[in-house]
């Protein structure tokens, strides 16, 4: 009896100890030359289960002489996984993450919380990164904190000319059929859409056309650019303003309401996801939309092949009057993104290897490797120009360009840090002449509505995260209601007042401070 009790207790104790050991005993050994790098999504994730398996990354490891083990969370649970890792206090040597919006206080918050390493006085150990920052003062200004600290490794675009990848697109064959010109002003757009509605361009004898396709996050919101305003924060005559609070924006909403009332915009847009809009664009129902060059235009051009004469092309950003200014209403080709970045954490024991490794990403060799992949496998050089191989453009296993490229390089994504090569991006993304042309057409326009990312203090970030969401949720709701006519536009002033109640003035003031500080640098 007694013996049995002892055995019982012993077993229970053993189980308890072993389960505890399972929890905490996972200390990584810090042998020199071995580092760990935590990262969420990456280009090629559909092809490779680890970023370290990409051939170009392996070449980099060889060149630097450092072995880096990439750690990926299970997909879709990145945020949870990241938070658990941080809360446990046991994190990898390097982390690539969206610190700006997914960590309270952003990079500075992470620095104050003792998670990341300050790189400001380490620039002598980062010769290549320092050089890129010195060559691109705008990037340098954007990524440094308000008091000039350098905290992370950013993705840099030195050449943005080919990166315009979003804009209005229209069915050229429908225009030709109805004898119309390419629209360049808001009035011409109205005429064209009206003709799409009444002129039966799909030729089935029924007036079943929905001239412009849209989803519940409506692309046509970017027509605001024609009215000289845009969604959210921008700078007007040196003052930070908010789109919805401007008179131009009211004019824009009024016009969209008119389009909606006359059936030019899909009447169900506010309840639709992308699937339906995609179907309309490629099955001869819709003739125009705003969208991305790859996931939009590329998809539609492929899916619309069954329709004789199907030709979807980019339309220029419209202006309000003939010959007037056409603004680009979105920051699609920012020189850098400060949201996500690679950091070295305070847990890193082998700092010299980490500096060497992270810095190497900004060398010319690494830029070619990461954007173009392996010579002879993913690209070849002809007459001094790089070209994608047949393996990528016309994959024997039926993989898309992005998928095939993902085996060798990280062309389309800026994660983790690197220099984006515009030519490689264009070569992979723009598979059709229409797409190549689109990146040129959408690149033309007035850029004064576009903003750089102005560095914010941790305190400002925390405040904005409290205010900004409530503002945009309210604004989206009334915008949709006013376009669809269930909320009269005469109530516009009332909604502006409500946004003030919700603290829009405080929000604008925070951005104004950030902007002034940025300009003073």
């Amino acid at each position: 009896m007694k013996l049995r009790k002892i055995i019982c207790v012993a077993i229970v104790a053993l189980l308890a100890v072993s389960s505890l050991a399972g929890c905490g005993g996972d200390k990584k050994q810090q042998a020199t030359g071995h580092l760990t790098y935590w990262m969420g999504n990456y280009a090629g994730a559909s092809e490779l289960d680890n970023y370290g398996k990409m051939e170009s990354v392996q070449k980099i490891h060889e060149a630097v002489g450092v072995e880096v083990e990439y750690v990926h969370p299970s997909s879709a649970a990145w945020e949870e996984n990241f938070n658990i890792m941080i809360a446990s206090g046991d994190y990898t040597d390097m982390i690539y993450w969206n610190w700006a919006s997914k960590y309270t206080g952003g990079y500075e918050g992470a620095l104050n919380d003792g998670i990341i390493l300050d790189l400001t006085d380490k620039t002598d150990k980062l010769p290549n990164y320092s050089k890129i920052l010195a060559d691109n003062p705008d990037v340098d200004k954007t990524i440094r904190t308000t008091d000039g600290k350098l905290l992370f490794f950013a993705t840099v675009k030195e050449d943005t000319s080919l990166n315009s990848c979003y804009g209005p697109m229209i069915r050229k064959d429908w225009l030709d059929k109805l004898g119309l010109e390419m629209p360049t002003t808001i009035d011409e757009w109205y005429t064209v859409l009206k003709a799409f509605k009444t002129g039966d361009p799909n030729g089935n004898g029924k007036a079943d056309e929905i001239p412009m396709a849209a989803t519940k996050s409506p692309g046509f919101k970017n027509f605001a650019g024609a009215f000289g305003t845009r969604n959210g924060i921008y700078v007007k005559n040196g003052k930070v303003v908010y789109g919805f609070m401007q008179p131009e924006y009211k004019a824009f909403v009024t016009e969209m309401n008119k389009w909606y009332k006359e059936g030019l915009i899909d009447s169900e847009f506010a309840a639709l996801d992308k699937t339906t809009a995609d179907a309309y664009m490629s099955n001869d129902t819709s003739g125009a939309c705003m969208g991305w060059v790859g996931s939009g235009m590329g998809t539609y051009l492929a899916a619309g092949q069954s329709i004789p004469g199907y030709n979807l092309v980019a339309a220029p950003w419209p202006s309000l009057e003939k010959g007037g200014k056409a603004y680009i209403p979105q920051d699609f080709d920012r020189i850098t993104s400060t949201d996500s970045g690679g950091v070295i954490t305070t847990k890193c024991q082998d700092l010299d290897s980490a500096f060497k490794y992270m810095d190497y990403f900004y060398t010319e060799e690494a830029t070619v490797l990461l954007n173009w992949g392996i010579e002879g496998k993913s690209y070849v050089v002809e007459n001094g120009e790089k070209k994608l191989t047949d393996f990528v453009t016309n994959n024997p296993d039926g993989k898309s360009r992005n998928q095939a490229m993902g085996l060798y390089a990280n062309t389309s994504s800026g994660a983790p840090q690197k220099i984006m090569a515009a030519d490689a991006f264009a070569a992979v993304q723009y598979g059709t002449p229409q797409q190549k042309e689109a990146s040129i057409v959408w690149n033309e326009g007035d850029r004064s509505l576009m903003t750089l990312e102005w560095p914010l203090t941790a305190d400002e970030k925390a405040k904005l995260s409290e205010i900004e969401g409530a503002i945009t949720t309210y604004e989206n709701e009334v915008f949709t209601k006013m376009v669809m006519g269930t909320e009269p536009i005469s109530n516009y002033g009332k909604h502006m007042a409500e946004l003030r109640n919700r603290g829009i003035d405080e929000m604008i003031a925070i951005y104004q401070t950030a902007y002034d500080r940025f300009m003073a640098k």
Partner: protein
Amino acid sequence: MIATKQKNDKTVVNDRARALRKKDGFSREFSKYKWVYFMALPGIIYYLVFCYAPMFGVLIGFQDFKYASGITNSDWVGLKHIFKFIFQSKGTAINYSVINPDFVRTVGNTVVISFMNLIIGFPAPIILALLLNEIKSSGYKRVVQTITYIPHFISTVIICGMISRFSMKAGLFNAVLGWFGFPAENLLLKPEAFKWIYVLSDLWQQIGWNSIIYLAALSGIDPTLYEAASIDGAGKFRQVFTVTLPAIIPTIVTLFIMRLGSMISVGSDKVLLLYNDMTMETADVISTYVYRKSFYEGTNYSYSTAIGLFNSLVNICFLTAGNAISRKVAETSLW
């Protein structure tokens, strides 16, 4: 679990046993039933580890919680987050003279949807069970039962995908409504329709599943009661009211009280999948608001926790009140 106040022989015996047990003390009972207690151990550990221990997490509702500082080092802010929910916040300041319009809207919608769900969704399974109980052909009964409870096993995402397709202008619902002369409209864009779509689809999905427990209760009724009733000249309808319903009243009341416990909670997933800018005013509920605050409009975990806690407190009030009333009126209660 159910304490009936009726004194009968059985309870007298129970009382005597309880008195006996008291005299001999707990240790004697424990040694007598130690294997039974031992078998309960995994369940007790489960509740301690997964239900009671995490409750300390509500502390972050009273803090400005930061992941890196953890619960122990984050700053305490008292009831700030609950006040922020109830009163209008202008930017980062709280204006105590104005009620938060989002508070009014989300609480209002939550109450209305829950109430509609209760009125429509609670009696329906009972009626279905009563009807099924009268079916004599067991094959037919089984087919009906299976068909009605299968939707319970379909995931919410798929259900909502079906609803949004069917609600489109060219969808199934509009085709049917068209026969009655209604113009085709996307039903998910109509604010006044949202609550009905929510409640009726819930009814369709859960009716069969929820009727199972009543069917079990019905099968426990002594058939001689029906014989006696029919000898006394009671028709089918009369039998339902004098024999069947009284027999399952304890089950109904217990389930009703438990339902009251979730009176002020409408799950977020279905609303999130179905609402849009047009229906926000009638569809936004507390749980979707909490979701947006913690994941979409920034990472305000403390605020969401405080609202969640507020929600639970209101639910406990409903549960307690419902239980007290039922103890008085129906003489049946959870505790």
